[in-house]
């Protein structure tokens, strides 16, 4: 996935944290017991986890994907 899409998703999620639209609402109670504002942030946490999955899959730090130089230096250190 293009890195700009992932960046956009991360920035969007950062913005979506400030949910002014549910600021003064207690109801409806989702599942009969969860205030809507709290339910929104539960969903936000799950969305964060999905974003992390996408970042790990498509934006894993490139330098760490190539351990050859790391292995070489580690070998140097250990010897």
């Amino acid at each position, binding site marked *: 996935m293009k890195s700009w899409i992932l960046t956009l998703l991360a920035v969007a999620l*950062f913005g979506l944290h*400030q949910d002014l639209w549910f600021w003064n609402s207690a*109801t409806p109670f989702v599942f009969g017991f969860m205030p809507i*504002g709290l339910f929104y942030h539960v969903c936000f946490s799950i969305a964060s986890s999905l974003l992390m999955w996408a970042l790990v899959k498509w934006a894993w730090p490139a330098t760490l994907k190539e351990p050859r130089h*790391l292995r070489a230096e580690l070998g140097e250190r250990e010897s």
Partner: protein
Amino acid sequence: MIEATVVFVYLAIVLYMGIFAFRRDRGTGEDYFLASRSLGPIVFLFSLFGTNMTAFSILGSSGKTFRDGIGVYGLMASSSGLIIPITLLFVGTRLWAVGKRFGHMTPVQIFRDRWEAGHIGTLIFLLQAALLVPYIVVGVMGGGKTLYALSGGQVPEAVGGGVVALVVMSYVFCGGMRGTAWVNTFQTILFLTFGLLAVIVIGNSLGGFSSTLNRMLEDESTAYLLSRERMNAYVFFSFMFIPLSAIAFPHICIFCLTAKKVESFKYTVILYPVCILAIWMPCVFLGMIAASDADIQDTVASAGTSDHVMLLVLKQHAPRWLAGILGAAIMAAVMASDSQILALSTMFTEDVFAYYGGKKFFGERVQVVTGRVFVVAVTVLAYVIAMTTHQQIFDIAIKYAFTGYAALAPLTIAAVFWKRGTKYGALASTLVVIGGLLLVAYLETAYPEPGAIPAFPFLTRTPGGVVFLRGFLPVVPLVLLSTLAMIVVSLLTPPPSRRTIERYFPGGSS
């Protein structure tokens, strides 16, 4: 007394874990301080997460929800669930890599090597240590208070605090990082298992969630707790900056160096937001529904603090065995000072003892012994301070600590991301943090009453502290100013040698 007995059994178990970890001790500094960089993905996830779950997360979150309502979850939990894993993914993995490559064991070692800085590293060490000590003291205080509450006053705070300090000291002394990681893993699993169960049992005891919430909605004195109508949106936004502190905390940074493979980070990064949800949701929910109980309201009003709402709910609405287990889990969170004590010991032995020639002169065995002696000394000192000082002082100090560490995050990020960063940039950034914290502390003391601050028209004193412009917490301008100082001063001063840059950014990457 059943609750206190369960807690004592828990303390015995964690003590045994420390002793068991001692049997695997290889006698090297890397083994004692970093568990030989050998933690697998599961222990790494739970121990790193457990390290971050302090008394503030468990007791503080339910107490704050009791006062301020459900917004506390978004304020502290969902913001952390987004920011902390991102920093672990992009900064933590790079810290792990340079730690593994060059053998570094503390953030200051990385800064000194990366920026070719000597005494500037010592200044950063002093600032980090000063911001870490209040945590350890409050951990001891919290242990005493929790045991006192769970035993119904039969275990005095001084004795409870002493027992907790002794247990923490013993397993950190014996087990080092390995023992600490195992205990944190045990703690996290305990809370994940029983937290949700407690919510269900207590909800039923209160007459069911749905009827409890409807009752709260109809009552004007509790209805606001179900929304964020009394929460400042600027403060809410400011809390997105606080989780930056995680990657700058020495104990979290040091934990990043303990992973056996970089792949261990993958599970942690993906599952961190879900773990936050699983731990914070029960705490916030219990804090919220506790407000519907008139007895708890009265107890809190007479005590003048809501920090022990969770314990009150457990005592009044949970079966005693469950209250005991949850009490043990709360105790475990209070004891998260274990990794902070170990981090302080690691920092002292590596950044001061070894750096100023102690390791070269006395050898590695003496260095490890010094680390263990330091653990004892810090714990004893923390206990003495905890028993002779008012907690409020340290609560305030911790408030500054979160801000301070968040404002130090640009240093850590620049160290692993920005080739052009220099030691003078790091120095400027550190001085901005020190100056900013001192200024905020001075203003909050000089202007105790809410209102305008004449000398600083863009600052206002509120009951909660000094805020910037329309309500931003000091963390926002401090993070921005610290970043600016790092960038501007680095660009104005000579970069580190080409050799150093090539070591840290091989192949021209980053």
